């Protein structure tokens, strides 16, 4: 009798997993960089090719690093949301990803510039170190330069409130926390 119940029991377990699976996105790949320091890099800034930018320039209580490009349609969709955040005083750094310098500068002139500054990653090499696989992506880093969160896809006010604000509040609550 016990033997006969085994198939049904196994099926119930399987169905439970499938049920949970329905509400997960299988194509979303979480970054292994969360909890790790921002990768070291040196790139020229977007607006001034002679000026360099490195990970040390991100120093702030917290900062966003936003991966963007003019060829990326979804980046256009989140642009207004980023402008609003910048207006609230959120420091956003741009990582301009495999783009044309002139069109990128042009875009910022026309649609507004939410970025404190943007790094210009023409070859995409630095983006590989960041584990970027599709623009737009947005990283949240803390004062020590540790990556705390990563969003793959379009930033919206709702996502900002639900995913980023709680993390930032946590960081503010534990300002001296060490990540060693």
């Amino acid at each position, binding site marked *: 009798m016990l033997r006969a119940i085994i198939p049904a029991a196994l099926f119930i377990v399987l169905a439970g997993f499938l049920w949970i699976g329905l509400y997960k996105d299988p*194509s979303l*790949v979480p*970054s*292994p960089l969360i909890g790790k320091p921002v990768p070291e890099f040196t790139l020229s800034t977007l607006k001034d090719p002679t000026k360099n930018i490195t990970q040390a320039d991100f120093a702030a209580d917290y900062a966003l690093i936003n991966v963007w490009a003019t060829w*990326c349609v979804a980046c256009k969709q989140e642009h207004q949301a980023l402008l609003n955040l910048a207006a609230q005083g959120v420091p956003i750094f741009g990582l301009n990803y*495999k783009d044309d310098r002139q069109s990128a500068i042009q875009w910022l002139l026309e649609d507004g510039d939410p970025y404190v500054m943007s790094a210009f990653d023409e070859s995409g090499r630095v983006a590989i170190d960041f*584990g970027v696989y599709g623009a737009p992506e947005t990283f949240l880093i803390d004062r020590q330069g540790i990556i705390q969160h990563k969003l*793959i896809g379009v930033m919206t006010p709702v996502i900002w409130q639900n995913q980023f604000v709680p993390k930032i509040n946590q960081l503010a609550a534990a300002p001296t926390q060490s990540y060693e």
Partner: protein
Amino acid sequence: MNKIIALFVCLLATQLVYAEIINVQPQYEDRYQSLLEELRCLVCQNQTLADSSSELATDLRVQVKDMLEQGSSDQQILDFMSARYGDFVLYTPPVKSHTLFLWLGPFALLLIGVVTALWMIAQRAKQAPTISEADQQRLHNLLADQDTGEK
């Protein structure tokens, strides 16, 4: 929503940008090919780096080629990729505590299955027959009269 975006990015990548063919120095060609078969493209998922025509795949192919030419071992290259993109990029799941069931499960199931089956058969064979072997034989012959060809 995210799925739609991912798909869109994937289409966009295959549409606008032509995947470059990267000519690798002949001495690295075999290792290069087999590494690409081991790595999963994150843009057009379910394609290997070798098959994907997305721009990221091209960049990563260049990365693999450069590392090969700088003398990196296969394992170093795979580690480089998984450090940035997670174990998701590896088509061969690494053996870790949470993959033990994946790697050992099939063989454990095989063992359980075969042992259970043989044990049950042995139990049955041990049961004393309720009728004599000769009767049993006759009964089977009667029941299986049309089976002659398939013994």
